[in-house]
């Protein structure tokens, strides 16, 4: 597995070259959202809006009405929690093509609760017309801006930055409203849906689970809205003991809720374990610490599988660390 650097930077520059009507708006976090180079290369298309997100959002709506394609940048938490009314009334209601590029999603920031967008999926899912993409690797960063550009309406992206692993082949881009099937078993014991940085955790868990003979379906989900992928339904059906989700945020309203709703609608009567923040806020610390501390990690997922199957698999933390260590030395 390879770590890639600053893919958003490369992609926003590529998009700007392909589409002259793209503008980048920044609320003073440009260098933290990989748009510094854009500001140098396209100074006339880089609109500095200051630390004033409400105005940035409505201003972008005005620009979008005149044929521009604004990509607004700041931390994701400031793009929904702080400005929900502007997001809804200025952009969502008129269905304007404004792309919200939200950085450091969930617990990927040591900035603490004020900087952590932990309930954004649940909140933005309730807003009509929006599409939501939760990015999990470098290949998805390479694909998502094109998908957002081609979507007929506003888009909320939980974007990753700086060093991001390339989990998926560079020539197999993300597909709109289609989960990525990482592993598929004929008669699976369990199905795991993962998103954002938690897909790395799920990958670590599934390797260990497979070593113990557990048959696992694993799907990575990046389109959280709409959420109508038949692959998700089929994987839930083909899952003897039940279903698990793991996500970078609260389990209320996010991936776990999406899956729960779909299972209920399709009449799939199986237990569901939702791994993520359990209806609480988090505090400021490193990503790896927070994943473990708030039970959003591979070990929690494994315990969930044990619970569903009613077995003890004897997988230890050390086994997992080894897997991760191997992955990261492969850079």
């Amino acid at each position, binding site marked *: 597995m390879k770590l890639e650097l600053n893919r958003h930077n490369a992609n926003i520059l590529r998009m700007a070259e392909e589409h002259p009507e793209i503008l980048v708006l920044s609320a003073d976090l440009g260098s933290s959202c990989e748009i510094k180079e854009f500001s140098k290369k396209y100074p006339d298309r880089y609109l500095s809006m200051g630390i004033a997100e409400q*105005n940035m959002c*409505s*201003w972008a*709506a*005005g620009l979008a009405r*005149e044929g521009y394609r604004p990509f607004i940048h700041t931390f994701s938490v400031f793009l929904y929690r702080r400005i929900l*009314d502007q997001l809804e*009334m*200025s952009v969502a*209601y008129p269905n304007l093509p404004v792309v919200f590029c939200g950085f450091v999603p969930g617990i990927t920031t040591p900035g603490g609760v004020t900087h952590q967008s932990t309930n954004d999926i649940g909140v933005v899912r309730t807003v009509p017309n929006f599409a939501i993409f939760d990015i999990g690797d470098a290949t998805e960063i390479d694909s998502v801006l094109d998908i957002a550009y081609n979507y007929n309406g506003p888009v909320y992206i939980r974007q990753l930055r700086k060093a991001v692993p390339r989990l998926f082949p560079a020539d197999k881009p993300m597909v709109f409203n289609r989960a990525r099937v990482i592993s598929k078993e004929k008669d699976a014991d369990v199905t795991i849906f993962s998103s954002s940085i938690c897909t790395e955790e799920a990958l670590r868990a599934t390797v260990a689970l497979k070593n113990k003979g557990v048959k696992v379906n694993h799907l990575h989900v990046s389109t959280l809205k709409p959420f109508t992928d038949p692959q998700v339904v089929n994987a839930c059906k083909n899952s003897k003991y039940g279903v698990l989700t793991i996500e970078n945020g609260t389990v209320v309203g996010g991936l776990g809720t999406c899956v729960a709703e779909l299972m209920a609608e399709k009449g799939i009567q199986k237990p569901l374990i939702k791994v993520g923040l359990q209806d609480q806020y988090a505090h400021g610390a490193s990503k790896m610490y927070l994943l473990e501390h708030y039970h959003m990690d591979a070990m929690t997922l494994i315990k969930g599988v044990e619970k569903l199957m009613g077995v003890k698999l004897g997988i230890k933390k050390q086994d997992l660390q080894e897997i991760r260590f191997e992955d990261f030395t492969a850079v």
Partner: protein
Amino acid sequence: MPKKTFTDKQIAKAAHNVRKRILGLCIERGGCYLAQACSSAEIVTSLYMKILNLGPSLGNPDAQPFPGVPGPKNMDYPKGSLYNGYDSKNPDHNIDRLFVSCCHYASVIYCTLVEAGRLSERAIEKFNVDGWNMEMIGAEHSPGFENTAGSLGQTVSIAAGTAHAYKMKGYKGKIYCMLSDGELEEGQDWECFQAAAFYGLDNFIVYVDVNHQQLEGWTKDVMNTEPMIERMKAFGWEAVEVDGHDIKALAAAAKTPHKGKPLMVLCQTNPDQDMPIISKLMPKHFITVTDDATREEYTKFYKSM
């Protein structure tokens, strides 16, 4: 088609008619934003009939059934801006645009459209009637409206974003926005004022109906916003104050030089202008007519108008 022009006398008469029509609605429907009609009738009629360079109306003169909320499958519904001569699908960028932030003034906009020959008189019968496009608080499908402004503070930013787009593209049309003074308490307005000055939006003109009243009472008692002229100048704007019932002064204000800066026109108005029957009422934000005595008094005055 030559552009229709109106004399100041005709505009004054139109303002009178707007007030009268809205008093009629107020009596008929049991309540209306009547004080806003009193304060802004000259501002809105002057904008439509003298100040703004609009194209001929492209809207249907009759009220229309609500065309549905916007969405991926409903983007081509008739927009309110058609009544200002602006068609977003085939835009003329040389004409001016008007963004109404104080969208509870919808009745004033509709009635002014009637006076300016952009909407039929019978359309007003559908004002605030369930299922029609003439809501009490307008949105982007309502005649005269560019956007959905009910949440205060956002429209000035949307209009400024539009002005910014016009400036970057070198379009000639000017972007006007209309506010009421109570809205100036919103933080987003000030974020916008700072950004509009920062980008030197000299194609952006904001008219404010300073009628000194808001829902809970007099603006000075709810939350002081004065001194506005000094505040706006400190924010890098040009700002002038005019008598908001003086048509000549309202029109002259739009010609105030404001090179490199946005312009704010603060229109001092009376919320009971030409409507002595509501002079003693306080607050006047939404005037109701629910008892027979009031109905009789208002009807008598209506007939005398």
